[in-house]
């Protein structure tokens, strides 16, 4: 009795002392990292040390405190909360708080000073350029998602049969490794225009003039210029779809396919009645993932046209409002709308994921 009592005191005292020490050490470290004067490399090393050891220390200390609680039921109730708290804190600070704040300032004026009610939303729904952005985002959503997903699926099924499968897949996957900005710069050269009669440096116009046509300024004329921009995204995303579909297609049991063939199914029937239903979950996941990627499209438009010539998209317009016009209210209103547009896709995606997991 006496010994356990003394041990408890030691434990308490030790934890308390360590907590105080840890607090001051961590505080000093943060100040050191934040200070502009401290050498960059050393600051980075300290940050690394704090990141690893500090977090470990925090967990260890909280574990110490928890385990010193004498009541078993309370201890067991608290333990998971303490361990999950940092994750929630991080999510809260970097995800939940900005999201809520964005919604909040979308009801304020340009400098977030005066409450303006729904004025920003009224602007967003009446401005003709934003209307074009909504229309274009819808077009992007339908066209890019459907083309990229079906092309990815088709390629996955087709290359599954050939000998040089991995090489073919590598080539199609390659654009995925390029950043959207890099890809856009490449495509600028593809679409480059020179006056008729001059040597065409753009690939497409070189082909067109070689065939006897007049050079076309591809990204100048709506609505076709939107397709020219979408082609870039399709070029980039198809590889992603193909890779995942390829793995899924290989997962379709051979027995199933063989059985279908024995029953007299033709290639198309095998594809539509065996393969597709079997990988339905994957198709939904890939489609919603691509959909979310497409809804957020920004870099391609920013680099190619920055929204001129009726190619505006919501994310680009949001960027303009925030950083060019410094109108935080309108920018946030657009962000909120974009967020609302993405939520359904996210829900479908998560539901599907949960279902796939329970099926396993």
């Amino acid at each position, binding site marked *: 009795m006496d010994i356990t009592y003394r041990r408890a005191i030691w434990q308490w005292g030790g934890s308390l002392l360590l907590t105080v020490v840890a607090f001051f050490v961590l505080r000093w470290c943060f100040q050191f990292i934040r200070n502009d004067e401290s050498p960059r490399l050393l600051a980075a090393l300290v940050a690394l040390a704090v990141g690893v050891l500090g977090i*470990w220390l925090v967990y260890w200390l909280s574990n110490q405190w928890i385990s010193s609680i004498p009541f078993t039921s309370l201890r067991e109730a608290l333990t998971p909360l303490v361990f999950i708290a940092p994750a929630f804190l991080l999510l809260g600070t970097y995800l939940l708080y900005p999201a809520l704040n964005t919604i909040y300032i979308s009801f304020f004026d340009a400098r977030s000073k005066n409450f303006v009610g729904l004025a920003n939303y009224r602007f967003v729904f009446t401005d003709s350029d934003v209307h074009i952005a909504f229309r274009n985002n819808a077009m992007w959503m339908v066209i890019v998602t459907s083309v990229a997903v079906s092309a990815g699926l088709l390629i996955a099924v087709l290359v599954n049969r050939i000998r040089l499968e991995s090489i073919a897949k590598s080539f199609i996957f390659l654009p995925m490794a390029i950043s959207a900005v890099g890809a856009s710069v490449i495509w600028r050269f593809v679409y480059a225009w020179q006056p008729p009669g001059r040597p065409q440096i753009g690939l497409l116009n070189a082909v067109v003039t070689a065939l006897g046509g007049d050079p076309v300024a591809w990204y100048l004329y709506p609505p076709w210029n939107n397709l020219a921009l979408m082609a870039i995204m399709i070029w980039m995303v198809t590889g992603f779809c193909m890779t995942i579909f390829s793995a899924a297609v290989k997962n379709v049991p051979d027995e199933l396919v063989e059985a279908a063939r024995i029953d007299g199914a033709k290639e198309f029937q095998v594809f539509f009645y065996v393969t597709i239903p079997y990988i339905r979950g994957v198709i939904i996941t890939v489609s919603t993932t691509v959909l979310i990627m497409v809804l957020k499209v920004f870099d391609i438009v920013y680099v190619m046209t920055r929204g001129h010539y009726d190619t505006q998209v919501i994310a680009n317009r949001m960027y303009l409002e925030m950083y*060019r016009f*410094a109108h935080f209210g309108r920018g946030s209103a657009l962000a909120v709308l974009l967020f609302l547009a993405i939520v359904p896709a996210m829900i479908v995606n998560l539901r599907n994921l949960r279902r796939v997991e329970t099926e396993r």
Partner: protein
Amino acid sequence: MNRRIWASLSLIGVVAMLLTACGPTPTPQEVKVTVPVPVEVTRVITPAPTAPVGPYEHLARAKAGEFAGTKVTIFGVYTGEDANRFSAALVPFEQATGIDVEFEGSADFETLIIVRAEAGNPPDIAQFSQPGLVKKFAEDGKLVPLDTFMNMDQLKKDYIQSWLDLATFNGHLYGIFYRAATKSIVWYPTPQFQEAGYAIPKTWDELVALMDKMVANGHTPWCIPAEHGGGTGWVITDWVEDVLLRTAPPEIYDQWVKHEIPFNHPEIEEAMGYVAQIMFNEKYVYGGRQGILTTFVGQTAELFPTETEGPRCWMMKQAGWIPAFFPEGKKAGVDASFFYFPPIEEKYGKPVLGGGDPIGMFNDRPEVRAVMEYLATPEGAEVWVKTGGFISPNRSVPLEWYTNEMDRLQGEILKNADVFRFDASDMMPPEVGTGTFWKGMVDWLAGRKDTKTVLQEIEASWPK
């Protein structure tokens, strides 16, 4: 059990490592400029005076070595060669004072400065490219009013009032104009121009006659490259503004900028008519309107002859910095020169449209004050003026410092201007000046909307 705790702890550690690894990396888009100081530049450096004298208090104290060892950061729009030359202009100051002045330039300055100022991490000094942002930061209380410590009498001696007015908000001075530019000039290939027997037009009618003569000779008069990514549109707004100064009194221009008259005032429509007379004529412009909208602003090669053919176009209206974009080996003053964009209506004299780069101060420390004062003196511009490609709005900069004819001529045009006005689109609220005005001009030129509709839409977009 124990092992599981260790496993989860190490997992947390890895996550933490990733988080911190993402932390202290510098903003990726900022381009750090290392400064190779040209040899000829070091020669012009005058040794620091032994006794601290001069009209500016902090500059004198800095030269006495009071702030040696401190550091001042400047963030701005100068990139590439401009950044090197700006940094070179700061070297004499650094040598005389022992203050380390670090310049960073970024093409995305206008975005990043807002982010940095909002995040409470602004540079000591910002080098802007137009007064609009100075106004925004001045009104937000982020910039330090310069009249609180600078010698205003000296400033009034060195700068004409309109430069000071442009950076004065709510009765306080927030910016010093470091570099000036004139936009009312037209570049042409000098030797070929003379060979072809073309004379420099002094009036609008002469200009139109010259254009028709060129067309009759099978030449294309203009190159109007305007494609500039998200900035596409400013070349056209510059044209409209330049013409407006020639067809309307300057008061109309001022009222238009301040929105005291509607944006679609008949005078503006008239000015656009003159612009359309040139830009909408396929015979006058290389590549026609498609060429205007798809050719990069800095594309000047067409102005010069090649081995096989003469110039593809004979005139280009662009500001004084365009020689930086001339093809390898082509020199301003030799291969190409400029003339003053001729007046239209005689009664409005010789107006000049121009621009300038103001410098503002975010952090108030004595060494920062010293840098600001240095940049306001002729001395602060000396190195750059002498290396060329730079026109100082500072009246006390002697004309002999300009080492090339082109810079001096621009200095003269600025000096002889009957009317000098700042680029209107830079002074309007950004959602108009860099938003609907640019976009409207692009739509107009692409033939998507007529003059009246475009002007009406811009008028409607003006923030209430």
